[in-house]
């Protein structure tokens, strides 16, 4: 069997360093398989997250050769193996141990976004009617597996650490799914502008490129939300209308 060398980040919340491991690999193996083999044979306490091993749960996010990826969907055969493959935790979040980062911030952010609020049921049977063409675009957003790769790659979080002012691509997708939901009647545009910091996004599309679910994050979620913000806050007609309404 051929072998591959890995440089795996080993460390805790305070410090760490890359350590080299060599593992055999067979056809079809993914990086997560290699990590499991190293764990079972050489480093039993190697910390990592995983669950479904099929790209559906978004647990095994890590940076492979510097790129945020799901380890379970990264084929060994797609990597250059003439030099060591580096595997490290998501760097936009505080480290816990080895490949495990503290992603709890994401769960706190979600709570701050106003929940789904449906209009009163209006079909005779006490439910609603919705057509496939009306739900298609929201279904794209609801494919999100919350792997947080988009959050990891976003420079607003990664380089500028604006975690207190900016919710990140994942939560713009979440907000877009709510805002564009055919039944939802809540208004989140004010928060998107202020508390959620959508203006910080300068649409470099890094998030779209790393999304393992191929969600068109920037074009389909963020830009339309930015347009809603513009319409509500900067459109001259709307502004005049608001001034007029306030004065009466």
């Amino acid at each position: 069997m051929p072998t591959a060398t890995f440089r795996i980040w080993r460390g805790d919340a305070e410090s760490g360093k890359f350590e080299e491991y060599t593992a055999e690999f067979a056809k079809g193996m993914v990086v997560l398989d290699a990590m499991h083999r190293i764990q079972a044979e050489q480093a039993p306490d190697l910390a990592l997250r995983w669950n479904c091993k099929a790209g559906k749960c978004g647990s095994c996010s890590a940076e492979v050769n510097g790129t945020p990826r799901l380890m379970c969907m990264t084929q060994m055969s797609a990597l250059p193996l003439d030099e060591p493959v580096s595997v490290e935790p998501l760097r936009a979040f505080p480290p816990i141990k080895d490949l495990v980062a503290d992603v709890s911030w994401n769960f706190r952010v979600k709570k701050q976004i106003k929940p789904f609020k449906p209009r009163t049921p209006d079909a005779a049977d006490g439910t609603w009617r919705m057509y496939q063409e009306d739900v298609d675009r929201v279904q794209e957003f609801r494919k999100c597996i919350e792997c947080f790769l988009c959050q990891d790659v976003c420079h607003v979080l990664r380089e500028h650490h604006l975690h207190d002012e900016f919710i990140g691509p994942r939560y713009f997708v979440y907000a877009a799914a709510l805002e564009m939901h055919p039944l939802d009647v809540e208004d989140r545009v004010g928060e998107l502008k202020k508390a959620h910091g959508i203006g910080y996004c300068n649409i470099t599309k890094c998030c779209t490129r790393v999304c393992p679910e191929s969600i068109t994050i920037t074009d389909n979620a963020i830009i339309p939300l930015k347009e809603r913000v513009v319409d509500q806050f900067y459109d001259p007609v709307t502004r005049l209308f608001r001034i007029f309404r306030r004065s009466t």
Partner: protein
Amino acid sequence: MTQYESFEYDVLVIGAGGAGLRAAIAASAAGAKVGIVCKSLLGKAHTVMAEGGIAAALANVDDRDNWRVHFADTMRGGQYVNNWRMAELHAREAPECVRELEAWGALFDRTKDGRILQRNFGGHAYPRLAHVGDRTGLEMIRTLQDHGIHLGIDVHMECTVLALLTDDGRVAGAFGYERERGRFRLFRAKAVVLATGGIGRAYKITSNSWEYTGDGLALAYNAGAALIDMEFVQFHPTGMIWPPSVCGILVTEGVRGEGGVLLNLERRRFMFDDIPENYRAQTADTEEEGWRYTQGDKNARRPPELLTRDHVARCIRREVRDGRGSPHGGVYLDISWIREKRKDAAEHIKRKLPSMYHQFKQLAGIDITEQPMEVGPTTHYMMGGIQVDAETQMSTLPGLFAAGECAAGLHGANRLGGNSLSDLLVFGRRAGRFAAEFALANQWARVDEAQVNLAAARAISPFETAAASGSRENPYQLQADLQEMMQELVGIIRTEAEMHRAIEGIDKLRERAGRVAVTGNREYNPGWHTALDLDSMLIVSEAVTRSALERKESRGAHFREDFPAKDADSGKFNLVVQKGREGEMQLARAPIPEMPSELKQIIEEMK
């Protein structure tokens, strides 16, 4: 004296998949203070892997459907050893639970007139599965999660429960540890809901993730509650088999629901070769009729690929055994053939089965719109589990409730696809509601420090073994040895001699587990966790094997080569497993109560 952090809840829910979240929401709505403990991060539980859909007789696609048909289908699929009251409640309440999800924001695929679309699935008479492409489970768990986080429920992520605490014959709470720092946590609770899922990790080839080590079953068993139907383990007929690293990953039954066919090496549809008597009247005579059924022709009957999972899995195994398998030891599952029937085949497949398309493209380098897949059986689901009361989901231990895969009864000897997601909703809701009722009607139970100290001592013993001299065992190796043995000796086809060997094997593994050692410290240590999982896996494996030995017939997912026929007398009881006074595993037959005449009549009418 054990150091721990304490928490108090009216209702503690262990597990945060569909059943756990639904239970937590229901308990919270009933006015209880609720805490959830989950082994992984929130939203990562195995519910996300459910693909095909939620079975509910909404009758949106075929108006002949109603709860009676769903009930009869569930009983037939379970070979009549189901808890009939659970099957009735499930069929009656599932539609309401699906509509509830929609009201919380779930966006199912739609019919032309704007209602929830439903698809065909194995063993269901009519198109019954509400779905979102092939990612229904993700839609469901995310909807419950996003609804639940605004209800003031405490969530303990990456936290594992090691023992349930009891006081004078009722539950008093739970004791566990959080992974990040490896510190102990004590949860005092008036009621506990177990929603820990399955046991798939006891087998080598499985669709289940590392979490599914039968924790809930072992916790309940150790606390004195009864388990039931443990011989019934579902092997899903279609798991990926190639390349080896993906072996076991699920291929949704939805592929067959959309017209996919099973072919052997000769490229022949072998499923027409063997159609069980009780399904003959409902099964298509020709390939053409089967195709029409998948395309919604109400006068057509379903193709034999959509027979129940137990039967399809055995037919696949037969083809492989008789030398008609595919190159990597499975059979072909082909959806690409529908090109002959539909001009838009490639687009249609990608729209209806997007995750299957990506899964095969990325993991196996196969384009399912062009080529057949190679598939074989994979350990998928546990029909057996904690014995519960049908109405309340309370176990035989007062204050301890169970819902979802870790509870038993609804599915009998074989679960129909799509009935698990509806199970989670219907019985998660009931468990949460009745757990809250129990909690609000009862005083706090006393926490026994001796139980806490014992659980803590057991938990840290692998570190002490590592520090002491003497022989040591690697937890990963032990787990792999158990999986290998269960796969080999207590798998799809069982015999008495092999299962006796398995019992001996379990004893030896248990002895080795006493010498398991872990290195490193307590912080986020997967080796330690693997060592702690061994206990549960051994209990569950023993319960499966002993029950399978005792059921001397073949029924549903339980197939005995030495007793290949169904036995009418064996259909009159369930097997119950309980921990004896000396710690030994006890097995007893529990007669199935007489079904009320209304239900009997429904089954007769639908025959």
